[in-house]
């Protein structure tokens, strides 16, 4: 049985939250325990905090858009397109931020950071298509 784009996006949102919320707890624990290898690198702290924040916010965005997609974008093709790129962005961006802080050296993130602009591009594409499709729907109504 083929799952609908809304169903897939909702599931991705849930899983993203399931990973990102414990990540936040973990980062707090690193602060509490003064884990030097984390705290002494300002860049790592920033990147992992961004990974936590993007994971949560994009997870919530997935849940919200999956819930209202059918009502907002009647065109199934456009809806599938928007949600596919949203899912990709929601996975790539937090992953990129996290990976960027793993093998970073002083002021520069590791190569994993390249996933972030790719994910951001997907997010922009998804939002652009969503806005354009919505505008056409409004015009034809």
């Amino acid at each position: 049985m083929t799952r609908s784009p809304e169903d897939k996006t909702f599931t991705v949102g849930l899983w993203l939250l399931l990973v990102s919320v414990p990540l936040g707890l973990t980062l707090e624990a690193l602060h509490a325990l003064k884990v030097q290898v984390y705290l002494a690198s300002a860049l790592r702290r920033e990147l992992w905090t961004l990974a936590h924040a993007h994971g949560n916010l994009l997870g919530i965005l997935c849940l919200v858009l999956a819930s209202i997609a059918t009502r907002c974008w009647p065109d199934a093709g456009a809806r599938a397109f928007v949600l596919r790129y949203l899912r990709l962005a929601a996975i790539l961006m937090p992953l990129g931020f996290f990976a960027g802080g793993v093998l970073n050296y002083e002021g520069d993130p590791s190569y994993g950071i390249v996933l972030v602009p790719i994910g951001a591009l997907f997010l922009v594409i998804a939002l652009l298509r969503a806005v354009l499709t919505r505008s056409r729907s409004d015009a034809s109504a």
Partner: protein
Amino acid sequence: MTLSSHLPMRLLAILAMAAAPVTVVLALGYCHDPVEHESERALIHRQDDYVGSAACASCHPDQHASWARTFHRTMTQRAEPQNVVGAFDGRSVELFGQRARPHRDGARFLLDLPTAGDGVRTAEVALAVGSRRYQQYFEKIERPDGECFQRLPLLWHVGAQRWMHLNGVFLEPDDDNWSKHASIWNENCIFCHNTGARPGIVDLTTRADPSRRAYDSHVGELGIACEACHGPGGAHARAQQDPLARYAAHQQGVATDIVHPGKLDHERSTALCGQCHGQRLPSPHERIAAWLQTGPTFRPGNRLVEHVEPLSRDTPSLTEDHPTLFADRFWGDGTARLTAYELQGVTQSPCYARGQLACSSCHVMHGGDPRGMIEDELRGDRACTQCHAAIGNDVAAHTKHAVGSTGSQCLDCHMPRTVFGILSIHRSHRIEVPDPRRDGEAGRPHACTLCHADRTLAWSAQAMDRWWGGGKGRYQAPAQRPDGVALDVPDALASLLAGDAVQRAVYADALGQAGVAVATRDGAALRVALIATLFDAYPSIRYLAAQSLSRLEAEAPAPMRAAIAAFDHTAPAAVREAHSHTLFQEFAAHAAPRFGAASSPIVRADFTPAMDVIVALLNKQSGRVIAIGE
């Protein structure tokens, strides 16, 4: 649905929740650790519980940032592009008749230096010491049992933005030996320009032969870092990893496993700075050998006098070749006259002896302008009036000088500029009341005549007695001067021309200060005296005199200004002397409309120098050579 059909999903959910913590832990195992990275670099040790400032930064980011702005942090640095301030631009510089060429090869800093027989060798800079007023450079030298760092002969003067030779910046007569100051970092600078120094002389028996000395030197951190004042931080860092311990410490108000300078009494607080800003010997002296291997034993929170003996005028010299080695560093009454003796000055002050004065009464490590490390609200008179509030309420009533004038500023009378540092004169840290008799008989610059350069000490004694002595003879003129100059010669002129090297340096600088031009009636005499000082045998005194002349003559006719700017204190003697004679002529040619009638015994009516009087004063110089490095 049965429970078993849910199980894989539940497992997946649990695995998802565990994914982040597990991945973080695994990732941290592979991560670059800045603290560990620093501890593994050359020269660094983590013995004696030193952990380095990066370990402090994770919990104290603001304090780390405020410290990182200071020149203490940059006191010793590796020769890396972001640390080197000198112009290694490939242009040759000629100093004392020889040429050197600082240049770069990518990230390497190189110095082409002359060798015996007109050869040239290239030295690669390994360490840079200093960054505020000047930066000195050291090359690494390999020896059979280890490596050491030897000082190169040129330094970069930050204020002047030019290269200078070490022979021309210390207080010593001209010397043709271009490599005279090739001292070893491992047994000199390491102690006070780093944190947690361990010089590690491998075999003390080789000390007699400098070419065989070998070192296994390490420091807790290059430069003056957190642990220099707070003590080794290992125990504190370990204990404070426990959040319960941290909150317990917060409840108590202070952690007991680290030194908080603000909680120390004024003696122990002053000792933190005094461990370096107070030249000293290990106490007892037998500890010297241990120092040269494992470093100083003083730790923050200790009483300094239980570890060291601060040098004084009476400290016996360590060498028969130089019996006045330590005495030269003090005025005749025991007041320090060099920088890095601030501890001696402070502890001799009544504010310390009878009050609670500490270095931290005026200075801060984590705020204010890094130049001087004083908060804005404690600049100027406020440093004193925070305690002496009644004087602050009516400054002019106390100073008898116009409010805002130089003579009305607390520091100019009670902490006058009488201390020689490298090519600059600093404030004395012995806070006290000027006394013309004491100062004159000790051969020590007197606060009043540092401004009133055309006045005698007898004049100062009369004025002081009238104003602050109630006319009861509390302030007296000296019975005689150490240099034997007649007491009716203005003190500044006598000290500048007939004093010893430190006196001459102090007055060479003083005569160019803004207050002197206002307080002194005969401006022509100031200029003639300073031009005469350009003949001095000490290059650093010539430099100070030229700087003062330049300030005084900022508005002079163009030929005079050009002649002053062209004076090179490191040029060959014949060139310098010809240049100085030209300056005398230029001055005389343009002086009449500027100064009216000359009234000083050292200036003739036509504004040419009264060489007979000047030479008579110069002949009063004792001839005793003073040679003071740092």
